[in-house]
């Protein structure tokens, strides 16, 4: 039985975990002081050695990303943290920043120093006002303490940190769209190459990292690469936040080594809500292909989830029990993607517009079995054909749901409508409480 390994979340239960004092009580800002005495390249090497991979979904090795920044090029470099957490189900960065904003600031100090950036940016989701305020306070406190600004920690290094509040677009979580938005343009993904490491923010070499990736850095500097390596599986090292939501007894954040299984996490969370059984779940948010009961023992690391036909994504484990109508759930997600499609490319813009209409018809029992094949074919015409990965995410739940629950779609057609009682799946429904 895998045990939880709280590092980022270790002190979330303390009343003042989000304050500078609360953070420092447990050794906060010692890692950055230590890092500033190291050679920048040594930090990059240490992060490489740790095996830390991007926690935003793609799992790209963080140290390698930092290593791509050309050095000695006489250009400004930028570190940009992607805190635009917007995917349905994904909810790790928001609580992390609410409970411990300073760990991100400390990670950014180390990361900026490593890539020789004098300016760092946090692009944060605008809707989470409480987190924005807390982040603002934390930055202000860090400036006052001399951890940000000129000559930080008396090291001679300067670092300005800018908090940028997004205006609420899912696409701005895509790193190049985020950069456009940060520059003041409409958030739409950019053509690559050039990649951000060569021409990112303001056409300067830029690293874009997820909140959790950067927040993991201080612990690596403090405890060493080996310590980090001791957690996780062969190619997926370290601890990470699993966000459990939906029809479970105790939803929330579970910080565990990569490779833990859903069965283990469910056990820690008190299981599926009483009197119900698991029907399907997402391993990493709504854009990752669905899993079912048969995947309970799939190791939740990058390779394990991928081998089982999905993606680890943001480790947003959305749990749905047998009261949930698959068609209804998929339709809701698809509506989300239609609403959030930026409109730049054809398959995503027009495809999601169309998919929603077909799914709506299917939910209300209209259509024929041929529509299911059409749905699959349209998804085939969307996936891998769009400008960015958003459209792949939009098609994933549809394709995977048809793979596992085609008969349930058919039930809607035979039934002339949805056979489920929508109230039964709500958390406020009496059943199971």
């Amino acid at each position, binding site marked *: 039985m895998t045990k939880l390994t709280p590092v980022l979340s270790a002190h979330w239960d303390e009343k003042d975990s989000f304050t500078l004092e609360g953070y420092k009580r447990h050794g906060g800002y010692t890692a950055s002081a230590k890092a500033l005495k190291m050679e920048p390249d040594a930090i990059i090497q240490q992060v490489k050695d740790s095996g830390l991979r991007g926690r935003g979904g793609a799992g790209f090795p963080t140290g390698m990303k930092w290593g791509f920044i050309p050095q000695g090029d006489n250009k400004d470099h930028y570190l940009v943290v992607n805190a635009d957490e917007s995917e349905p189900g994904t909810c790790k960065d928001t609580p992390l920043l609410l409970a411990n904003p300073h760990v991100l600031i400390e990670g950014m100090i180390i990361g900026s120093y490593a890539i020789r950036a004098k300016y760092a940016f946090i692009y944060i989701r605008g809707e989470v006002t409480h987190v924005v305020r807390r982040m603002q306070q934390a930055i202000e406190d860090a400036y006052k303490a001399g951890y940000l600004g000129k000559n930080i920690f008396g090291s001679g290094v300067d670092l300005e940190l800018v908090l940028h509040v997004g205006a609420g*677009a899912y*696409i701005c979580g895509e790193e190049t769209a985020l950069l456009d938005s940060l520059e003041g343009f*409409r958030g739409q993904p950019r*053509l690559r190459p050039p990649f951000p490491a060569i021409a990112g923010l303001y056409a300067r070499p830029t690293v874009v990292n997820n909140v959790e990736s950067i927040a993991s850095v201080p612990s690596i500097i403090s405890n060493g690469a080996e310590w980090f390596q001791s957690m996780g599986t062969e190619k997926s090292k370290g601890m990470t936040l699993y966000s459990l939501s939906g029809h479970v007894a105790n939803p929330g954040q579970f910080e565990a080594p990569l490779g833990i299984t859903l069965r283990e996490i469910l056990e820690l969370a008190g299981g599926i809500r009483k009197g119900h059984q698991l029907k399907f779940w997402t391993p990493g948010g709504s854009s990752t292909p669905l899993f079912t009961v048969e995947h309970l023992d799939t190791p939740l690391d990058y390779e394990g989830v991928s081998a089982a036909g999905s993606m680890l994504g943001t480790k947003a484990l959305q749990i749905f029990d047998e009261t949930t109508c698959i068609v209804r759930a998929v339709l809701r997600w698809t509506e989300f993607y*239609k*609403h*959030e*499609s*930026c*409109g*730049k*490319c*054809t*398959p995503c*813009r*027009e*495809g*999601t*517009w*169309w998919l929603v*209409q*077909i799914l709506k018809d299917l939910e209300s029992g209209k259509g024929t079995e041929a529509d299911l094949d*059409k749905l699959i074919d*349209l998804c*085939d*015409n*969307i996936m*891998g*054909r*769009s*400008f960015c990965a958003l459209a792949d995410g939009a098609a994933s739940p549809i394709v995977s749901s048809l793979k596992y629950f085609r008969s349930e779609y058919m039930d809607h057609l035979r039934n002339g409508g949805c056979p489920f009682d929508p109230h039964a799946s709500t958390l406020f429904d009496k059943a199971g409480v």
Partner: protein
Amino acid sequence: MTTEVVDMITLVIDGFEVSVPKGTLVIRAAEKLGIQIPRFCDHPLLDPVGACRQCLVDIEINGRAFPKPQASCTIPVEPGMIVKTQLTSAVAQKAQEGIMEFLLVNHPLDCPVCDKGGECPLQNQAMSTGRGESRFEGKKRLFDKPINISSQVLLDRERCVLCARCTRFSEQIASDPFITLNERGALQQVGIYENQPFESYFSGNTVQICPVGALTGASYRFQARPFDLVSTPSSCEHCASGCAQRTDVRRGKTLRRLAGDDPEVNEEWNCDKGRWAFKYVTALDRITNPLVRDASGELREASWPEAIAAAADGLKGNRVGVLVGGRATVEDAYGYSKFARVTLGTNDIDFRSRVSSDEEREFLASHVVGTSTTYRDIDRADHVLLVGFEPEEESPIVFLRMLKHVKKRALKVSAVATKLSIGNEKLGATFLSVAPGSEADAISKIELTAKSVILVGERACESAGALSAVAALAHRTGAKIGWVPRRAGEPGAIAAGAIGNLLPGGRPVSDPAARVDVATVWGVDSIPSAVGKNADEIFVAAKTGQLDALVVGGVDPLDSALSAEALSALDQTFVVSFEIRPSAVTARANVVFPVAAVTEKSGSFMNWEGRAREFDTAVEGSLHRSDVRILSMLADAMGKSISLNSVKSASKEFASLSKWDGARATFTPSTSKSLSVGNDEALLTSWRRLLDDGSLQDGEVNLAGTARKSVVVISQKRASALGVVDGDAVKVSNSQGSVTLPVLVENIHDDAVWMPRNSRGSHLLETLGTASGTLVKVGKA
């Protein structure tokens, strides 16, 4: 001649090997093989965007295949690349069919009423690449339609496929980012800023490159079906940029003009004036028959023989001056040139129906005619200096070419000017601010290299000594001079010798060998040897009785610096006018010959580069004759034939004269003179805007709607002294008249006041009798 070394890359597309220069995009390499990959957002002159996804193909490089189809419009070729298009890859074919199906999801099936129907890339490619039947059974998005994004461009949002060609053109090519994509998802749409319409001089290009019927020109909307139009390649008559165009005619009426494709000149663009200002041809007041003034003093219609006889009578044996106008074709100008020398026996001929000077005439003969500065020189220049020239207003394609290099390689641009214009701001030009009349001094201080280009406008002659300073600067640094007049006919008129100091081919009148050359070809004994009068002198001579008659082409006497003298000269002499519509000249003429407009005849212009811009008759069956044909008839009647009974014969004979290879005309530099400016005074400066009250723009209200508003521009210092702010009325006056306009405070020399030369409420030559360099009073109105 230097040869550029280009790295070639060889790849295989659909089994065929092809070699293309490094950096070529896959979609373009395929074109080279004749393989057409469908596309919408892709445009060879715009940066790749990869938005529409229509051009997906399968690609592998050295055995490694991309896991999914790639947009061929964004990927440059690489060695060892194997590309499979829809022709050889089932995956690519399905991907393209899928995208086409998606594009049609929200596209209305209104082809039967859509202007684009019949020439629509979406329609065509839906046929070539799409499914026969749609599988879409849902609801399409709906928008209110159409919306005006300017007075001349309409937007049907539901037809838009969001390829962003229009927005990218406006930003990347014209630097007028007045339209942008708004909203998101399927509701994404092209839009303008609030209260800020799409008033770009180049907006028509977006209509032309729109791959669907989303953007339409207000004047052409619902006017024709493409298959009813007869298209003729043509050349623009509006300015000296020399744009290739296409003229579309239905049943004898021009309905539309499009930018032609000429990579060396206008690439694929033109300006809105070239595109939309052609209704003057079909104006209701066109003169259709010859007119002769009868005994009672009334102009009445006459037969051709009667009119020819009347004109011949009035001219024969008299002292005659010839005013050609700046809009004649090369062939017509040649006709006037020969007519003046052979039939009238005079060198008193000038095409410059505008403010001009003798310094300019000498400059043209010594530094312009026979030289060849080209667009290519701009492409290669290290520095472009503008003198008396506002490219955006006065030669828009020269402006676009400069802008391209400003964007691409930070081309350095400097402008000796009295005011920093919008266009020069877009060019990032270094503004060398001068008081009107002090240009020469500023020019003499500039450093250039042999790779630099000096673009000189026709207004440079309005400042004494400026052209002399340009000549000296070019001599000192080796920089090339390009003279860019506003009117399309001027470079050709110089070459044809429609000016008092030059014979055809740039031959100096004063050179006996040159005269012998021409006399031989013309089969005459001799050619008058005295340098002729210039346009102003012709008017004065006519007024004072030293000339008895005038032959006047398309000239507006109100364009002259001596507009008052011009009108009385016309009143006092026998005038033969060649015109298309009634004017101040026809009102005073004794004989008026109706002539063909440019769409009704063949011929050629010569653009500022000296490049021939030939065109054929676009409107067949017109009864109007080209000027040269009428002149030839007139010469016959006068007993001194010029034997140019067709455009073709004129063109042939002109070509046979070839260029002068003898000594060039000499140039005597002039010096500038400065005026002292009193407290409430300023030196007037002005230029014509691209869209203004010019008579060739008559009748096109949608175009006129996007003209820049008339203002009087003063410096902040003067505004503070006058106590005025933007929008306040300011009066500019002299002894002859006054103009009152809203004031705009801009970057202008403190001693100067600027107004548009010929715009609504601001006709300077008519009202003030002056357009630049003279003292005027400036005060709060």
